[in-house]
């Protein structure tokens, strides 16, 4: 599958994605990969209804997504993949999803998480997953919409002292 963008966004499919990213990435489908949403008919329906015109939305489980990644019938599909957490992104990449960059849109705050930018809050698990992704040489690109300037989330994490930069200084 031709993954044009892999985006981590707690809100999954919403206006920023539908109006901005979907238009600026030349994709045909948006794949929302989220085990909970795929098992919840109401959420699924709502997500499908948020589809921008002309673009199909599918809601899938992680395991199904990985199956599709390896299925050559779907090789020519140009897709935008949305996941809820860094952990899911890691599961996809580990399972064979091919990408050079992960876009971080938003990660919502909760009791376990700490705000690091106005839209990103992380906990230990997120950091571990992000570090794992980073170690594969995959760029962590923090942008809400495509016209924002690119910000390297890894650098932000380093600046906050949340991770030690093992890559750039070695």
């Amino acid at each position, binding site marked *: 599958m031709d993954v044009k963008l892999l985006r981590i966004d707690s809100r999954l499919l919403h206006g920023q994605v539908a109006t901005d990213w979907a238009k600026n990435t030349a994709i045909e489908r948006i794949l929302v990969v989220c085990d909970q949403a795929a098992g919840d008919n109401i959420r699924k329906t709502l997500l499908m209804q948020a589809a921008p015109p002309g673009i199909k939305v*599918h809601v899938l489980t992680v395991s*199904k997504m990985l199956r*599709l990644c390896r*299925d050559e019938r779907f090789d020519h599909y140009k897709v935008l993949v949305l996941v809820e957490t860094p952990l899911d992104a890691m599961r996809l990449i580990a399972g064979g999803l091919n990408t050079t960059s992960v876009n971080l849109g938003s990660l919502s705050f909760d009791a376990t998480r700490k705000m690091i930018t106005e839209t990103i809050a992380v906990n230990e698990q997120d950091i571990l997953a992000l570090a794992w992704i980073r170690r594969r040489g995959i760029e962590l690109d923090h942008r809400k919409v495509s016209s924002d300037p690119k910000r390297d989330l890894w650098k932000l994490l380093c600046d906050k002292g949340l991770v030690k930069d093992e890559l750039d200084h070695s």
Partner: protein
Amino acid sequence: MTRKEKILAYVQAKNKAVTTKEIADDLGILRNNVSKELNVLVRAGQLSKIAGRPVKYQSLTAKTDTVIAETVSKIPDPTEPSLRSSIFDTMIGQKDSLKTQIEQAKAAILYPPHGLNVLITGPTGSGKTYFANAMHQFAINQAMVENKNFVTFNCADYAHNPQLLMSHLFGYVKGAFTGAQEDRDGLIQKADGGILFLDEVHRLPPEGQEMIFYFMDHGTYSKLGEITKVHHADVRLICATTEDPESSLLKTFVRRIPITIQMPQFEARSVREQLALLKRLLTLEANRTQKNITVTEDVVKALLGSVTFGNVGQLKSNIQLVCAQGFLNSVDQAEQINLKFEQLPQNIKDGMSRLASDRARLGKLSQLLEPVLLIQPDGAAESINESDRYELPYNLYEVIGNKAALLKEEGLEQGAINNFIMTDINVHLKSFYRDNKILRTEKNLNELVDQDTLQLTKDIMQMLKKDCGYHVGENFIYAMSLHLSSFIKRVQSGRPMREVSDDLVAMVKDYPADLKLAEKIKAMLEDHYDFIVPASEVYYLAVLLISLNSVPKHGKVGVVVAAHGNHTASSMVQVVTELLNVDNLVAVDMSLEMSPTVALNEIIAKVKQVDRGNGVLLLVDMGSLSTFSAKITEETDIKVKTIDMVTTAMVLEAARKTALIDSDLELVYHELNEFNGYSRKAEEPTQGELEDVRQRAILALCSTGKGTAEKIKQMLDEILADQLIDDVSVLTMSVVGMNDKISELNEEYRIIATTGIADPNLGVPYISLEELFQGDRGKRQLIEHLENSQTWYVESKTPAPKVDQTAAANYLEQYYTFINPKKVIGVLWQYCDLLAKERQLKLTDARRLALIMHLGGAIERVLLSAPVTLTEEQAVEFEQSDWPQVLKLADEYLEAKLNLKFPPAEAYYIAKLVDTEMVES
């Protein structure tokens, strides 16, 4: 002079009763102020108030005799001339199906002081807009409104943009949004003092509904961009919706509309009314063309039957279509348009058969009809309805007339002219059917099959239908054209012809008639393509014909909803019918005092009405009802299944399951019994159930398993890939020897749906070729079904105890007294094997056991000399069959081992058992 004194002086100066409005106009005082002062004066005893519409006031000193009479008649007397000749009197159904509605409408308009807000509900095309117009006309005639503009607004127009919609309704002030250059009044202001008609009101967003009901309560509103509600308008609202108001509108909104008028469905109206409507609509066309129109009996039937979902509106469109066509055919004749059945378009002709399926209606109609109906222009004005969306914006007949004249001048032939203009007419009138599937069939097929083949298929169909009386099913055009197209391709590509297997020959042998037809088709093909069609192809054609013919003319499973209460059942049915647009659903409302016998009879009548030969599902609310199914089946011979505790959700589910994918009664019944509403959580597998791990598959059948089936597979594969469904295979198969192959497949695959030229009756949904190729609905249903069948639990097999000789011996011991199981079991086992071999049976454990048990009984009967007997006929039948031969070997073996011989009667029953129980697969 104070305002009060001025008014008093004015009224006293007049020598007759005056209305508030007259005073206000003449004195230049605001009407509501006048009204206030008048009330004070009346209370003070200085003036008297005369009840009536509008209320009049007069000086106490100037009483005349008529006043007394007027004062007495507080309630409008229906015999009063102005009321008697109201607009509603010419409305069809005013004494019958619209009686209540008209009374409600009159009450709503006349209710003091200014009338009441009204909500009109009813299915699409049932005449809501027409009715609203009539109400407005009535209000004008009764002088209940000052503003004679009938302001209408279709809420669907801007439904995607709530802000724009609201600005249309309420107006806006300068600067409220970009582009708001100046203040603008909304429709509410335009309707001040009159009536505002909100069509498709369910499309009004909730905020809009809130603003409207605030306005209803207070009479004030604010424009977009204003903070205070400073504008005042006096407006009666008439709202219309096709939806169930309870679920599509805010409760607070509905509550503020005191009167709900429900327009009846076309089908619910009496035959007499339907006919009257037809005549009225034809008269409109006669007026427009200024020609007489003659209509034959059959055309009337076809037109009435052609109303499938769109009620009167659809009837109107259809009448316009056939009149336009008739007009074109008679442009040269001076005074008359003749409508004949043969000239009708196919979709209207179909109405005839649709009507014919409803005996009761057809019977009543026939009584009312004359062989030829003559409609003359009556010179009446056009319909009262100006904003009728079923009305064309221009005079179609003028267009046709002009165009025909022009083309004639150009020297075109009449035939060419007709063709040309018919295209035009279709374009103009297609709008009504825009969302519907008519004519889509062929378009879809065109993408798969070339025009030439399609035409040939149609010729073949014509030949079969006309000359041979072969029943051409719905699937025919798809199956045959696809088959031909793949056959032609094969010939053209020079690939070897298909071989004919023995199975195939054997199968066809039993159907000599179809084989003969296949020969005929072969001749047609040779004639058309000018090459020799190989004999093998005849067999395949025959198989195709057999398969298509054996597709029973299954109708849908019918659904009858029966519940206590005056509207309980019918409202559920109405909701579902409108949601899903189905026609296999009827309701029986039962008042509580209705006796069970009466109820039963009513249900039986409905069951008969809705049965299409495939059984009827009865959904009931409680009590005695649930015991009816046996009685109904007894009386009607129709299979009936009953489900208790009906809910709207269940009716919805039943309609969906029965109408959309061809399922059978048992299956629907079974599934519905497990249906608990839409919001249930995924069911956990109960203990003892295992997840079925077989791969899901869809089975595509055609006569060869190669041509059509491959095409279907291609198409389904595309759909599946598009839906990202990667775990469903599409399998292709020939109908020849289908059953054996299916059981093989079952080892590896779980077949979840079937499609193709015949329904193999596997107890899973069958999707006909028609549904599949006819656009989105069939596909959507299929996909939905795939989603739902994702996890599937089967009962875990406590591996069925293997039937070996010991087990069989144990069974024999339990049931028979005089034989020694251990001694005979080996012999019987072998006997079974011999029989199976001779007869080419596949003996499953269960079947072997059944046979052994039967044989045990037979031996015991022989030992006890208690023989069974045969009638002469049976003996002859047995002798003439191949059974004596088949049993010979096994019997010889039995005699050698046990020194015992079965008499012919026993042999006959063994043969019967094998025939009925075991031949099937």
